[in-house]
């Protein structure tokens, strides 16, 4: 298959060999599971269980809280110990509503799980989407966008390709690699089911060529299906970015402010495909995920399949704990991952990795003045000029930064990675994007208030006019009455 060049990018030290040969191992049931109501992009889900409730594995514990939201299910059988605030795996370290489940150790599936769909390809695409929604599946590559919403894109767009993202371009992470090697058939089946739900005639699986075994396994699994193509894509960070993978495979560039779906392409992650397979074929909701636990400070790096809600501290302990104090513990890959405020946070649906990195690995240095070396310009995969945007932001010129394209930045971190002056460029851009979004919201809010105020004023005016008219009418009537000759009654009253 012909591939197309993608601009810029970097070639970081991948360090995948630490876990790429460790087969996925299942974590023993922990003592408690913490299910946050917000594990996805969109509205928080709403708890449907109360303290003391007995739950079975796969039973819904929180229902979707809106159009863009996702349900959550009990990862094992047990009892709801609490519905309380608990620290979320987010850099802020703020607590958020969480359902705490105490496993009973029997790990029993609920009896009333929906049945598997025998021939999903004959099923109505809507039935598949409903099943995916009911199973609480979100994008498992890290974005955690509700998958059912994304599977809806076929209803508004004419789709050509479902792109399965097996690039796994972040250093260290190997969970997708292992999934493709060990469960290729499940991934391929899930992908084909999704393509059916989307109405996309073909599936392309893109895998970076540094995972030859995964490519081989997937190619074998896809051999029987002429509509599925597995292709090795260049090892070039951020190949796993939707827009860039789409460009590499279709040669088409997603226009700014549009979706890849506008080009007829929808991208889903390999782990998501496997989750869809389980949901559709067996009626099993998303209750576990594979997490790569790695980094120089982890004693025995591994790929661990853990029930959702497991505390990160248990994952770390399972991997032998820390061999040395880590400088950072990161949720996700080292490029786009988020620092964790504490180990006492739960594993969530979008958590692909837990990395305990040493100072040597993070290579943090105080930033120096920009020497205008231009490296950031050369490598930016979005064609931006990071050095210029950063200068604008430093001078608090957000409009300048916006004009310079900061809203088109995908926060891939390549510029910060390459900068010889160690300037935290993405940090600036994330700040600016947040501030600009807030400003935008504020403006819209103000517009709304203004519109409301105007309509209120209009209403008041109308009312006043109506009153006036009524008053005038009344006055006229009175005048008329006064002018009219007195009737006998009037006389009588007088």
């Amino acid at each position: 298959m012909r591939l197309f060049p993608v601009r810029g990018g970097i070639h970081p030290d991948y360090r995948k060999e630490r876990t790429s040969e460790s087969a996925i191992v299942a974590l023993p049931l922990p003592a408690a599971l913490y299910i946050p109501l917000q594990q996805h992009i969109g509205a928080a889900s709403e708890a449907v269980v109360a303290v003391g409730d007995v739950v079975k594995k796969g039973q819904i514990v929180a229902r979707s809280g809106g159009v863009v939201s996702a349900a959550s299910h009990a990862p094992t059988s047990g009892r709801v110990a609490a519905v309380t605030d608990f620290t979320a795996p987010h850099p802020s370290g703020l607590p958020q509503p969480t359902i705490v489940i105490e496993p009973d150790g029997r790990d029993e599936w609920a009896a009333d799980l929906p049945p598997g769909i025998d021939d999903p390809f004959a099923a109505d695409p809507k039935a598949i989407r409903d099943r995916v929604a009911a199973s609480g599946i979100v994008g498992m590559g890290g974005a955690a966008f509700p998958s059912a919403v994304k599977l809806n894109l076929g209803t508004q767009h004419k789709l050509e390709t479902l792109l399965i993202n097996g690039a796994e371009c972040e250093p260290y992470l190997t969970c997708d690699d292992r999934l493709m090697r060990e469960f290729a058939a499940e991934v391929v089946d899930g992908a084909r089911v999704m393509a059916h739900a989307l109405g996309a005639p073909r599936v392309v699986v893109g895998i970076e060529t540094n995972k030859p075994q995964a490519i081989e396994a997937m190619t074998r699994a896809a051999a029987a299906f002429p509509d599925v193509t597995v292709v090795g894509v260049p090892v070039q960070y951020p190949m796993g970015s939707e827009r860039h993978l789409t460009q590499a495979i279709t040669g088409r560039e997603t226009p700014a402010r549009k979706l890849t779906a506008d080009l007829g392409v929808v991208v889903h992650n390999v782990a998501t495909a496997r989750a869809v397979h389980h949901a559709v074929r067996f009626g099993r909701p998303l209750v576990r995920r594979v997490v790569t636990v790695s980094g120089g400070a982890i004693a025995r790096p591994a790929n661990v399949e853990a029930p959702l809600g497991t505390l990160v501290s248990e994952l770390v302990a399972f991997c032998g704990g820390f061999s040395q104090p880590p400088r950072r513990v990161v949720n996700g890959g080292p490029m786009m991952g988020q620092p964790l405020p504490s180990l006492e946070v739960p594993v969530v649906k979008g958590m692909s990795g837990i990395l305990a990195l040493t100072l040597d690995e993070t290579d943090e240095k105080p930033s120096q003045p920009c020497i205008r070396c231009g490296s950031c310009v050369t490598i930016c995969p979005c064609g931006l000029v990071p050095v210029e945007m950063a200068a604008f932001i430093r001078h608090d010129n957000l409009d300048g930064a916006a004009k310079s394209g900061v809203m088109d930045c995908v926060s891939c971190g390549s510029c910060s990675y390459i900068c010889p002056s160690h300037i935290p460029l993405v940090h600036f851009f994330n700040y600016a994007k947040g501030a600009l979004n807030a400003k935008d919201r504020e403006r819209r809010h103000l517009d709304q208030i203004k519109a409301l105020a105007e309509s209120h004023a209009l209403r008041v005016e109308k009312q006043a006019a109506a009153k006036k008219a009524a008053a005038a009418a009344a006055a006229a009537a009175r005048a008329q009455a006064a002018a009219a000759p007195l009737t006998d009654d009037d006389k009588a009253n007088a």
Partner: protein
Amino acid sequence: MTTAYNDRAGPFTHAPTSVSKTMFTVLAALTPATLFNLWMFGWPAIFLFLVTVGSCVALEFLCVRIAGGSPEGAIGDGSVLITGWLLAVSLPPWAPWWVGVVAAVFAVALAKHAFGGLGQNVFNPAMVGRVVVLVSFPVQMTAWVAPRPLFSAGAPGFVESLGTTFGRNVSLDSISAASPLGFVKTELARGIPVDQSIVNVPGLADLLLGFHPGSMGEASVPLVLAGGLYLMWKRIISWHIPVSLLGTLFLMGTLFHAVDPARYAGGLFHLITGASFLGAFFIATDYVTSPVSKQGQIVFGIGIGLLTWIIRTYAGYPEGMAFAVLLMNALTPILDQHFRPRVFGRTRKGQPLPVKGDQ
């Protein structure tokens, strides 16, 4: 967990790059050519080199101290060493010590720190230093000597050399000789066509190696080129500026020479005389004062090549590289504005690409 921090966003890994690593790689690339130059021009050149670099470092220390920064850190980044080094090799090797000191003041204190220090300057500090002394002390700055390699017959001894650099009564006439560019230019002014005068300048091999009068940096094209290629290999610089600069210079020389050989020197002559290679690989590629995008760098290189050729050919100075670099430095902010990569998903004008627009 007491050791992990969440005070900082990612990425949590970094390329093995740093400012000092970059700068010291540049210095390493300059070293072979410079050692050769120092050997060729002997003790006076060595003294001048030390005085110039030393003054630059001292001034950096002073300026950063005054500005309240950390002088050790500033010197440690290596940038001032490059400035001093390039400045030293752009001076006539037997110039008196104070030429180096004055040039250093203008380069470091004015061109660099008055603009705000590392990364803030608009003009290449070394070239500012060189141009200021060239304009202020034309006699000293055009007193070239023929190479007298260290320890060779006729080379000045250590003590005698101290006199040359630090003494007061150096007779400039006794040492002065013309550089090839200067020679051709004066001859042309005397009415001697270029194609006749050029046979009297050293042969091609000597020009290449640098066995001709000139500043240190004008010598030894092969070693400068080797240093430049090393920098490209190390990805400190890219081909864009050197190739566009030298290409333009060569093209202009060749074109005009073909039209009127009596008036214009050829392309090859332009390439291997003067500071063409040093300028193309080490001076024009200065990060701070050149455009950040590749597109801008190509235009920048073409501009310097063109201006160098024009100044060499028509203006009063035989060598125009320094002026050309400074002129293009002034344009760098504008080049940065106009020559930028196309943003992903947008047209060159910045509008979102049309949805069904297949390229």
